[in-house]
C-alpha cells in the first residue's frame, strides 16, 4: 500500500468520517416524522466521493446504501459540471439507482475551497409517495405509474434557493404532504450537519491529507476484498432460483439466473438468462441486484470488515436489459427487496460451489410485509398496522441458523412490535407469537425456525394486505441439507381456515371482527445431510420442541426412547433405510430449453410416466435434484411419453448447477407446494 499518511492520522480521519455518518443518523431519528424512519430505522446515510464512490457509512441498511452509488453516478452524469454550492439534489427513480419509489434520496454537495469534495446523502423510506394505494406499496401494480411519483435527479435547491415548483409538485402528488415536508427537512438537516463536520475535518487535517486518507482507506478495503477473492479458485459457477409472480391469478414463477465468475482477484456477476421484466412488482434495477451480490460476498468472504466502496471495486455486474434484475420503464419495481433477497439466494448457491464452509443454507428470503388498516372503534381515527415478521437463517458449518432473525441484507431493523405495545395501540389480541415447530430446514446443522404470529381482530371490519415471496417455493438447503418451511398466511374465521387465492400475496382482503390472521414466516435452509446430525442434538431439539418426534424420524432418522433419549440401535437402522430409499437416477444430456411459463420461466423436468410413478412423482410436482454441488436444482415434473424410461434429461446449465456429467447419478427429493405453475388456487379462498 503506497501512502504518505501516517497510520495514526489515517485511523483518526477514517473514524471521523464514520462519526459524521453516525451524527447524520442521530439527527434523522430525532427529527423525522415517519414511524418507519424513527421506529424501524428504515433509512440510511452515507458520504460519497466525487467519483460516486461510497466513502463512509455506519449502521446503515445494506439494501439502501449499496445501490446509492448508482444514484450518485446518475446525478453526477446528468449535471456534469453544473453542481454548485447550495445545490441539493433529490431523486427516487428506481431506473436510475433507486430502490422503490418510497425510498427518497437527497444528495448534498459539499465544497471546500470552491471545489466539490464530498457528497453526504440520505435515503429514507417515505410513508407515501402517491400512486394507487395508501402507502404506495401495492402487489397489484402492473406499471410504475401506479406506484407513485417518480423523480429523476433534480435540483430541489439551486444555489441555496428552494425550487418551489418541485415542492408543489410533491405536495400535489403524495398523501399527507405535511409529513413529507417534515421528513425532507429532517434529511436536509442531517446533510447540513455533515457539511459542517466535513469542513471542520478538512480544516483540521488539511485538504490533501484528508483526500489521501479517503483514497488510502478505499484502496485498502479494495485490496482486502481482492485478497479474499484471489484465495478462491478461478472459474464460473452458476445457479438459478425463482421469484413468485401471479399472472392474472395463475402461479407463474419468475427465473433469476446467475453466472458468477472468479477471475483472479475479480468477481463478475452475470445475470444472463434471467426472466424478462414482468408486469408485476418483482422487478428491480441492477443497482439493487448488485446490492444483493455485494451483501452476499461481503458477508461470506470477509465478514465484519469496514464497509466502503473499495470493497465493491473488484465486482463487475452484467444483466440483460429490461429483465427482472435490470428493470426499464415502465415496469413496476415495488418489491425491490424481494429481488435483492433472491439475488442473495443465487449468490449463496454459486458461492457454495466455491467455498461451502463460508456460506449458509438459504435464508428465509422475503421481507414478508403484512399490513392491516381500519378505523378505531368509537374514535374518528384510522390506524395502519405494519409488521415484517422475520424468518429463519440458514444453518452453516459451525452452528444452527438463528430463528426469527432478520436476514443479513436487512440491516438492524426490528421486524415486529411487542404484543403489549401493539395491543395498547390497535384493536388486536396477539393470541400467539412463537417459533414454528419443524419450520427450520433439516441438516447436519439445522436452519433457523420461522415464527407463527396470530392476530385476532377485536375492532370493526378491516383490510389485510401482504406482499411476500417464498410462500410457495421454499428456501433451499445446502450440502444435502433440506429446504425450510415456506411463508404461510391464512385467516381463521370461526371454525373455517381460509387460504389466500395467491399464496403470500393479497391486497385489501376484508377481515371481520374476531377473525384471526395467522402469519407464519419461513425457516432457513439446512446445512449438511440431516442423517449426519448428532442424534443427541436432534433429541435436544425434540425436547425443546423445535423439531417434532415425527420429523426427527422422517427427516433425521432419529428414534427416541420414551424418556426422549436417543435409541442408538433404532436410529442406526432407520438412517440406513432412509439413505437406501432415496430415489437415485441417471441423467442424460438434453439441450432443448427446459423453461416454460406464461410470462415467467420455470424449469420442467420431463419424465417418462412409468419412471415418475415408480418414484412417486406426478405432473407439476416440485422436486429437488441433488448432484455433486452443494445447492439443489429445482424443477417441476412434466410427464412426457417420449422421455427415456430410465433417466432424466438435464441441460448444460442444469448440469453445471449440479456438477454432474451425463451418465452420472443424481438423487431426487420431493417438495410439497400449495399451488402449481399455471394454476389458480382451488382451495376455499377469501374474497378480495
Amino acid at each position: 500500500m503506497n501512502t504518505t499518511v501516517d497510520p495514526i492520522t489515517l485511523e483518526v480521519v477514517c473514524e471521523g468520517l464514520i462519526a459524521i455518518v453516525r451524527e447524520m443518523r442521530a439527527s434523522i431519528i430525532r427529527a423525522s416524522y415517519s414511524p418507519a424512519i424513527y421506529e424501524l430505522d428504515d433509512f440510511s446515510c452515507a458520504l460519497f466521493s466525487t467519483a460516486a464512490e461510497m466513502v463512509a457509512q455506519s449502521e446503515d441498511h445494506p439494501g439502501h446504501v449499496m445501490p446509492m452509488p448508482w444514484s450518485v453516478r446518475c446525478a453526477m452524469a446528468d449535471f456534469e459540471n453544473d453542481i454548485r454550492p447550495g445545490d441539493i439534489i433529490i431523486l427516487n427513480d428506481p431506473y436510475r439507482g433507486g430502490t422503490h419509489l418510497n425510498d427518497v434520496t437527497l444528495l448534498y454537495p459539499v465544497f471546500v475551497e470552491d471545489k466539490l469534495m464530498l457528497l453526504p446523502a440520505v435515503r429514507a423510506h417515505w410513508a407515501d409517495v402517491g400512486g394507487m394505494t395508501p402507502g404506495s406499496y401495492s402487489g397489484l401494480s402492473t406499471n410504475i405509474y401506479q406506484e407513485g411519483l417518480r423523480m429523476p435527479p433534480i435540483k430541489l435547491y439551486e444555489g441555496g434557493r428552494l425550487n418551489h415548483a418541485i415542492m408543489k409538485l410533491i405536495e400535489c402528488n403524495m398523501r399527507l404532504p405535511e409529513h413529507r415536508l417534515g421528513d425532507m427537512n429532517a434529511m436536509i438537516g442531517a446533510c447540513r450537519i455533515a457539511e459542517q463536520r466535513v469542513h471542520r475535518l478538512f480544516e483540521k487535517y488539511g485538504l490533501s491529507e484528508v483526500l489521501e486518507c479517503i483514497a488510502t482507506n478505499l484502496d485498502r478495503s479494495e485490496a482486502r476484498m481482492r485478497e479474499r477473492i484471489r484465495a478462491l479458485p478461478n472459474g464460473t459457477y452458476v445457479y438459478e432460483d425463482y421469484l413468485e409472480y401471479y399472472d392474472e391469478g395463475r402461479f407463474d414463477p419468475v427465473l433469476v439466473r446467475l453466472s458468477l465468475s472468479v477471475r483472479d482477484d475479480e468477481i463478475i456477476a452475470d445475470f444472463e438468462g434471467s426472466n424478462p421484466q414482468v408486469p408485476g412488482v418483482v422487478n428491480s434495477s441492477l443497482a439493487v441486484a448488485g446490492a444483493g451480490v455485494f451483501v452476499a460476498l461481503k458477508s461470506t468472504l470477509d465478514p465484519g470488515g469496514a464497509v466502503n466502496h473499495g470493497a465493491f471495486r473488484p465486482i463487475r455486474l452484467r444483466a440483460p436489459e429490461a429483465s427482472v434484475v435490470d428493470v426499464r420503464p415502465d415496469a413496476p419495481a415495488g418489491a425491490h427487496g424481494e429481488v435483492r433477497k433472491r439475488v442473495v439466494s443465487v449468490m449463496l448457491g454459486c458461492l457454495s460451489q466455491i467455498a461451502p464452509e463460508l456460506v449458509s443454507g438459504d435464508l428465509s428470503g422475503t421481507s414478508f410485509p403484512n399490513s392491516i388498516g381500519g378505523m378505531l372503534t368509537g374514535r374518528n381515527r384510522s390506524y395502519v398496522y405494519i409488521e415484517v415478521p422475520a424468518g429463519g437463517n440458514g444453518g452453516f458449518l459451525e452452528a444452527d441458523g438463528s430463528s426469527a432473525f432478520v436476514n443479513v441484507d436487512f440491516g438492524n431493523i426490528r421486524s415486529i412490535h411487542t404484543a403489549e405495545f401493539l395491543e395498547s395501540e390497535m384493536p388486536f389480541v396477539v393470541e400467539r407469537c412463537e417459533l414454528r415447530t419443524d419450520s427450520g430446514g433439516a441438516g447436519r446443522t439445522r436452519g433457523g425456525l420461522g415464527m407463527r404470529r396470530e392476530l385476532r381482530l377485536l375492532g370493526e371490519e378491516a383490510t389485510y394486505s401482504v406482499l411476500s415471496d417464498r410462500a410457495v417455493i421454499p428456501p433451499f438447503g445446502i450440502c444435502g441439507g433440506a429446504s425450510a418451511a415456506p411463508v404461510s398466511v391464512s385467516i381463521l374465521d370461526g371454525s373455517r381456515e381460509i387460504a389466500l387465492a395467491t399464496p403470500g400475496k393479497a391486497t385489501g382482503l376484508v377481515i371481520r371482527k374476531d377473525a384471526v390472521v395467522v402469519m407464519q414466516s419461513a425457516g432457513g435452509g439446512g446445512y449438511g445431510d440431516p442423517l449426519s446430525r448428532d442424534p443427541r442434538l436432534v433429541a435436544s431439539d425434540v425436547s425443546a420442541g423445535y423439531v417434532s418426534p415425527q420429523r426427527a424420524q422422517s427427516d433425521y432418522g432419529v428414534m427416541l426412547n420414551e424418556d426422549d433419549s436417543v435409541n442408538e440401535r433404532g436410529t442406526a437402522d432407520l438412517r440406513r433405510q432412509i439413505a437406501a430409499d432415496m430415489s437415485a437416477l441417471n441423467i442424460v444430456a438434453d439441450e432443448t430449453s427446459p423453461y416454460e411459463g406464461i410470462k415467467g420461466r420455470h424449469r420442467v423436468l420431463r419424465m417418462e410416466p412409468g419412471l415418475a410413478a415408480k418414484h412417486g412423482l406426478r405432473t407439476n410436482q416440485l422436486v429437488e435434484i441433488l448432484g455433486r454441488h452443494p445447492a439443489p436444482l429445482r424443477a417441476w415434473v412434466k410427464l412426457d411419453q417420449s422421455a427415456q424410461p430410465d433417466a432424466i434429461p438435464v441441460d448444460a446449465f442444469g448440469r453445471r448447477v449440479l456438477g454432474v456429467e451425463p451418465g452420472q447419478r443424481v438423487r431426487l427429493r420431493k417438495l410439497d407446494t400449495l399451488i402449481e405453475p399455471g394454476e389458480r388456487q382451488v382451495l376455499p379462498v377469501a374474497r378480495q
Partner: protein
Amino acid sequence: MQMVGVDVGGTFTDAVYYDDQSGELRWAKAPSTPADPAQGVLAAVGRNNVELGSTDRFVHGVTIGTNAILERRGAPVWMLTTRGFRDTLEIARTNRTTLYDIKTLKQTPLVPRQRVIEIEERVMADGAVLRPLDSAQVLAAAERLTGEAPAAVTVCFLHSYVNAKHEEMTAKRLREHLPGWFVCHSAEVLPEMREYERFNTAILNAYIGPITKRYLDALTKSLRRQGYRGAVYLMTSSGGIVTAARAARFPVHTVLSGPAGGVAAAIHLGQLLGTRNLITYDMGGTSTDVCLIEDLVTPVTSEQFIDGLPIRTPQIEINTVGAGGGSIAWVDSGSILKVGPRSAGAVPGPACYSQGGEEPTVTDANLALRRLSPMLKLAGSVSLNENLAEKAVSRIVKAISGLDVPRAADGIIRIAVARMVSAIKEISVARGHDPRDFVLTAFGGAGPMHAAFIAEELEMSHVLIPLRPGNFCAFGALISDIRHDHVRTYRLALDSADLSNIEPSFARMEEDARSVMIDEGMPPERITMVRGAGMRYLGQSWDLIVRLPDWADAVRDLERLFHETHEQRFGYRAADPVEIVSLRVSAIGQVTKPELGGWSIEGTLESALRETRSAYFSGKEMSVPVYLRDRLPGHARFDGPAIVEEMGSVTIVPPSWRAEVGRLGELQLKRKEP
C-alpha cells in the same frame, strides 16, 4: 460518624474512609480478587486502617452480578409465562446488530425453551381479564419444579404492568412450594410495558439473584466478624444506595453500580465548585465510562443493554468503552493498529507488571514514553518494569513498518484516545451537545493520564482532575443518598384529560415508597420525593421522562414541560396531542456526607518537585518536571509539559496546557491560547 465506601473494579479495589468528627478522609487501593471479590474489599478496607467496630456506614459498589451476566455464570432460571408466548425471549426483537456477517448468531436467551412453562391466563392492555388464571396449571408447575435442585424462577405474564394479580398469585404459590428458590415476578421488578424488555429484566434479576445473595451474605458475615454492626448499603445503577436486603431481592438494580458512584461524585464536586456542565471520563484498567451531565442533573435512562440483553431499570446514562489502561494493542490482518477490546485484566495485567503478560497495553505505552515512572508502585504493591513495557511495545514495531518504540507507543495512546473521543461524541455531539460547553472531569486510575489529549481532540479547553481520582468512585458511594425508584403504567391522553386523578395516584405511590423506606430505618424527616412522568406525542412509540417541579399543582404544567423537554432533547416540538404513559416516584433518604475541606498545603512549587524526567510528547523527547500532588501548594500554577503523581493515579499536563491547583485541591487544566 464514620463511614467506608468501596468500589470493586476489574483491576483494583478502591476504598475511602471518612470520619465526620475529625473531617479526615483516607484513601486506599488493593488489587481486585475476581475469584472472591470480598477478599479485595477487606484488603482495601484494611489498608485504610479502618476500625470496623466503630464504623456506622458501609457502602459498596458491586460488580458480581454484572460479571455473572457477562460470563454467563448465573443461576438456572425457570420461567412461567402466558400461553402462546413461550418464545418471547428467543424471538426477541428480531433485529441484527452485527451487519455483513452471514454467520452472526442471535443472543442466546438466559432461559432455554425447556425451562419455559406456559400457563393458561390472559390480561388485556387495559387490565381486564380475558382468561382467568388456571391455578391447577400453576400448582402442576410448582410440583414439577420441586423435583429440581433449588434455583430461580420468574413469573412473566402479559400486561402485568397494568394488572399484576395473576403474577402475584402465581409467585405466592411458588414461594410456598419452593423453599430455597429465588422467586420473582416481572411487575415487581419493572412494572413497565413491552414484554420482551420487562421479562428480560426480571429474568436477569433472577439470574443474578442467588449469586448476589450468596456474596452479600458472605460479605456481611465477614464484616460482622470484624465488628461492623451497621447496615450494608449498595450503590444502584441510578446513582442512589439501597440496603443489602433490598439489593438481594432486586439485584438487577445494581448492575451498573460501580460507574454510578463516579458520576455521583462528579456531580457533588461540580456543586461545590459551581461547575454545572461536565463530561465525566472514568478510565480504569479494563474499561472506560463516560457520562454527560448538563446543569448538574444526573442523566437517567432505562433503555440500556447488557451483553445484548435489554435491562430496563433506571440507570445513569453511561457509555462504556471496552478499553482501559490494561487494554491490549494488536495489529490486524490489514496492518491496522487496534487497541482493545481484549484486556490484560487484573491477571496477568500489563506486561510491565512483571506478572507474565507479554502483549503491549495502554499502560505499557505510557511507561515506554516515560509518562509513567518505573519508580511508581501501583496500589502500593505493583511495581512497573520499563524493559518489559518496551519489549511488549516493540511487538507493534515489528508488525508495522516505519515505526519505532516511541512512535508505536504514541500510536497506541492516540488510538485509545480516539476511541474515548468517539464514545464522548456519541453522548454529546450525537445528541446535540457541543463538548466545548463542558468541562472534562477525569478520574479512574488511567483517566488523568489521557484527559488533556482527549480534550484537545474535542476542542474542549478545560479539564478537571479531582483529588484521588483513582478512588473517586468509592468516594461517590459515600455521598450518595438512599434512593428507591418506583414506576407504574398510567395512560392518559392530555387533550381529553381529567388531571385530578393524577395527584391521588402520585400520593398513593409516595405513601407506599415512604413506608418502605421507614421500614428500612430511615427517619421520616430525611425522606424527600421526586416525581416524574413518562410522556410522548400520541403515535410516538418511546416515551420521554419529564421531571415534575416541586411547586404546587405542577401537574398542570406537564404538557408545557413535555414540549420543552422534547425540544431540548430531540430538537423539535410537534403540534400533536400529548399523552402520559407512566408515573414515576423516586424516594430519596438523605444520608450524612463527607465534606471536602479546603486545600491547605503551603510552600513553593519547587518543594513539590520530585524529579525532572526525560519523557516523550508529540514524538519529541523533552525534559519534564514531575510533581507530587500532595505537596502542591494551593493555587500553584505551572505549564505543561508536566507530570503530577499521587496515590493511585498520574496526571499528564501536555505541552500546550497549563495546570492550577484549585481551592479543594482539584487540578484545573486549561488549554493555553494558541
